[in-house]
């Protein structure tokens, strides 16, 4: 059987109802065990503007939004005009011919006009065109009408039997019209007999936090990180998590630090601008040696930037956040499932090493949606709180002799929670001695400062061996190695498949743990590679500069994108081709469509 690969694009203005047909389609696919990847290109506007949702399904894992569209559902003229250039031969465009004029399409693209006035003359709802188009799409891909009927019945149940009957009737009209007027697509949706789960990266991060045992979550709303707050708020009571919306991001991180100091696993999320405000307090967490996890969901910057668009532009910010040197662990999950898995791992590390941990996500990952095998969502994860006295409010008293910042070989000193009898101590953001007494004012002492600073920084030596080193994915003797970090994994791997079809053998080194960096392992891998090209979603090649600083490796080529939209696979294919041909060292793809 040939591989199924179907991409459906739904576009229109905000408020026209793009999410609902998208959700219904995704649900139908994952219930048949098909993989789904969804990316919504949108604007910061409540009504109007332009939104374009790409929903791609396959019987194989879907790694990116892909390059082409098989079914286009333009809900307004704007979408019709903008997106026809993405249509693949054999594709179809379904549109309401009452309001939308057909565009000029390439050969082999089927125009499927339907008239809302003719098919649903008695219905007055604005969203009738969506229901008609959705039903027609399902007919084109040969999904039984009963499935749509069941979903519509569930959806409109609360509005009463009349509403259900009306919507099912409209859907029936669209379905039957498509059967007689349009040519079905050469796809048939298999049913694997297995159901998949479907979620967005922000939900995955929040659920990962729940699995890790987060007891305190706080945030200030900021796109594209707010999804974490929404999930946490909705599930707070069920899971026993204190969830708070705070006055600003400075308050957020400080509140999380306060909760963490008492012994709660505490997490917060924001985007680049909010993270900038948190910088000072992240250093404070390191100085007081309080574990806390902060998620930065990157959007296009600087400043307010493009709130609804993706970028990998905060790498240097998170590496340099806060003044002075301090231990911190930074990880960039490489796919949506990884967003879930990375959180408990990071919490164990920050608890063990008593320092802040940063998760570097981005809009593509966090608001992008993906199917996942529910078996991969393992909530029964190992929990390691590190060396903590009095986690349950008890501990043998040492009455006055407790050295919170005891200088140890590992740099980690046992921690005691407030409330524990016999361990009274003060933690401070000023430099302090082993007892927590300030050596910043009266008792300054260069030797003590050096010893305690080295103790803190030594922790990082202990972190590295606990992190999995990066592994080369693909053939070892490839023509070219594509190096990426974080969210670009999926699109790079899909580009590798396309390159292979064009006779170029590529492999991929995707970096997940950014700080500390497995520099030696990376050098040993890349020194054996024939050509190295670094792929990243920013202007200045932040990762390329970091790699050069840490390893001395200077990549032969760079593919960079910073227009706000994520890479499509062919952007990388074109870049590799151009760089290998020697026509450029730095390839910046042009995004074909305006969204």
């Amino acid at each position, binding site marked *: 059987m040939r591989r199924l690969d179907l991409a459906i694009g739904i576009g229109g203005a905000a408020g026209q109802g793009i999410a609902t047909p998208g959700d219904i389609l995704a649900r139908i696919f994952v219930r048949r065990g098909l993989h789904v990847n969804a990316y919504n290109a949108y604007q910061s506007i409540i009504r109007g503007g332009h939104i374009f949702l790409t929903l791609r399904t396959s019987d194989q894992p879907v790694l990116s939004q892909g390059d082409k569209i098989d079914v286009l559902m333009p809900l307004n003229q704007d979408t019709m005009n903008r997106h026809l250039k993405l249509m693949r031969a054999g594709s179809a465009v379904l549109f309401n011919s009452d309001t939308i004029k057909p565009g000029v399409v390439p050969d082999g693209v089927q125009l499927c006009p339907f008239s809302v006035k003719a098919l649903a003359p008695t219905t007055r709802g604005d969203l009738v065109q969506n229901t008609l188009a959705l039903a027609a799409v399902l007919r084109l891909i040969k999904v039984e009408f009963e499935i749509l009927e069941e979903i519509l019945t569930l959806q409109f149940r609360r509005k009463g039997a009349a509403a259900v009957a009306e919507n099912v009737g409209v859907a029936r009209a669209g379905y039957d019209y498509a059967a007689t007027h349009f040519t079905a697509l050469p796809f048939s949706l298999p049913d694997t007999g297995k159901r998949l789960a479907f*979620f967005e990266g922000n939900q995955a991060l929040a659920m990962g936090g*729940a699995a890790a045992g987060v007891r305190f979550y706080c945030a200030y709303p900021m796109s594209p990180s707010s999804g974490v707050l929404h999930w946490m708020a909705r599930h707070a009571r069920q899971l026993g998590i204190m969830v708070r919306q*705070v006055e600003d991001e400075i308050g957020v991180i*400080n509140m999380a630090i*306060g909760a*963490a100091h008492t012994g709660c696993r505490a997490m917060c999320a924001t985007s680049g601008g909010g993270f900038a405000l948190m910088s000072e307090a992240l250093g404070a967490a390191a100085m007081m040696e309080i574990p806390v996890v902060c998620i930065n969901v990157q959007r296009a910057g600087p400043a307010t930037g493009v709130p609804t668009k993706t970028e990998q532009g905060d790498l240097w910010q998170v590496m340099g956040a806060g003044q002075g040197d301090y231990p911190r662990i930074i990880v960039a999950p490489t796919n949506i499932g990884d967003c879930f898995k990375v959180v408990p791992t990071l919490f164990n590390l920050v608890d063990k090493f008593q320092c802040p941990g940063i998760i570097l996500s981005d809009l593509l990952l966090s608001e992008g949606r993906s199917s996942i095998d529910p078996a991969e969502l393992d909530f029964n994860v190992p929990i390691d709180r590190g060396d903590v006295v009095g986690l349950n*409010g008890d501990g043998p008293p040492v009455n006055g002799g407790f050295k919170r910042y005891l200088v140890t070989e590992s740099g980690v000193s046992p921690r005691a929670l407030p*409330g524990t009898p016999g361990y009274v101590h*003060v933690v401070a953001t000023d430099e302090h001695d082993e007892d927590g007494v300030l050596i910043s004012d009266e008792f300054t002492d260069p030797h003590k400062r050096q010893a305690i600073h080295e103790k803190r920084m030594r922790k990082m030596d202990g972190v590295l061996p606990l992190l999995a080193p990066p592994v080369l994915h693909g053939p070892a003797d490839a023509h070219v190695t594509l190096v990426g970090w974080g969210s670009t994994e999926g699109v790079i791997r899909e580009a590798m498949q396309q390159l292979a079809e064009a006779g170029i053998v590529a492999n991929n080194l995707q970096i997940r743990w950014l700080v500390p960096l497995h520099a030696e392992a990376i050098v040993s891998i890349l020194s054996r590679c024939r050509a190295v090209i670094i792929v990243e979603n920013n202007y200045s090649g932040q990762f390329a500069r970091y790699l050069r600083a840490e390893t001395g490796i200077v990549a032969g080529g760079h593919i960079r994108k910073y227009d706000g939209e994520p890479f499509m696979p062919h952007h990388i294919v074109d870049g590799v081709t151009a760089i290998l041909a020697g026509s450029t060292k730095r390839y910046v793809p042009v995004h074909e469509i305006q969204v």
Partner: protein
Amino acid sequence: MKETTMATMAQTEHVKVTVKDLKGKVDPDWCPGCGDFGVLAALKQAIAELGLQPHTVLTISGIGCSSNLPGYLNTYGMHTLHGRALAVATGAQLGNHHLKIVVTGGDGDGYGIGGNHFVHAMRRNVDLTYIVMNNQIYGLTTGQLSPTSSKGMNTKSTPFGSVENPVNPIPLAIAAGATYVARGFTGQQKQLVELIKGGLQHRGFALIDTFSPCVTYNHDNTHEFFKQRTRKLEEMGHDPTDVHAAMEKGWLWGEVIPIGLFWRRQDLPALDQLEPVLGAGGPLAHRPLGVAPDIARALIAELM
């Protein structure tokens, strides 16, 4: 909990706490004559008189002369960032609502850089006792204008006199939702101890703005200045449950400057009392981690 630990804890609980027991690891490095000595002494006295065990108290401060206080006190302490003590304290209170949390700091720390957190901690009615050592000057940075400096005051940063109106923390706190609003003066030690005790016993946000003169940089608002002008509210026949009277007295500044309890209401629950998550199961910080299998299944089912 193991039996031996239970016995140890019980023992600890019954030890009588004296002011001496509350002495920190080092002595204060404040200037001789600084009002902050009086606040430290009053706080120790209040803790001892209420019989609070040192390990059950968490003292949190920001940055500045007065914010060094936790280091001079034998309770759990956090010396956090400039202006952030109330945010940290809110997290700590919700993380372990069995702790008695005292927040200490100065006027610049609390009403200047920390102004936003100040307003929000009060509207949330977090169960905290906030003692502000108000000296109307920036001391640690060698004498610049503070948010409470009087209009016209000459400082290093206002050599021709400040043209700005000062913050008045008393009406601000009442308006923002604090449920215990008092003003003390280090020259009235006995009253200050009572005000702090009242704050510690109050369930909700308690502000004790305290005149704590800076003998080095503020030559206007001296110990003598307050001694001549302060008048106790209890002697003025003030009713602390009358919000209008509290506001009115809060605005008095001149020949008569009232000190004492301006405003108290006890009918509003504190934030932790409103949080269903804290309803049963003790402090969040001590709860076991992990998601029960049936809940995990329900969470995954939502995605299918």
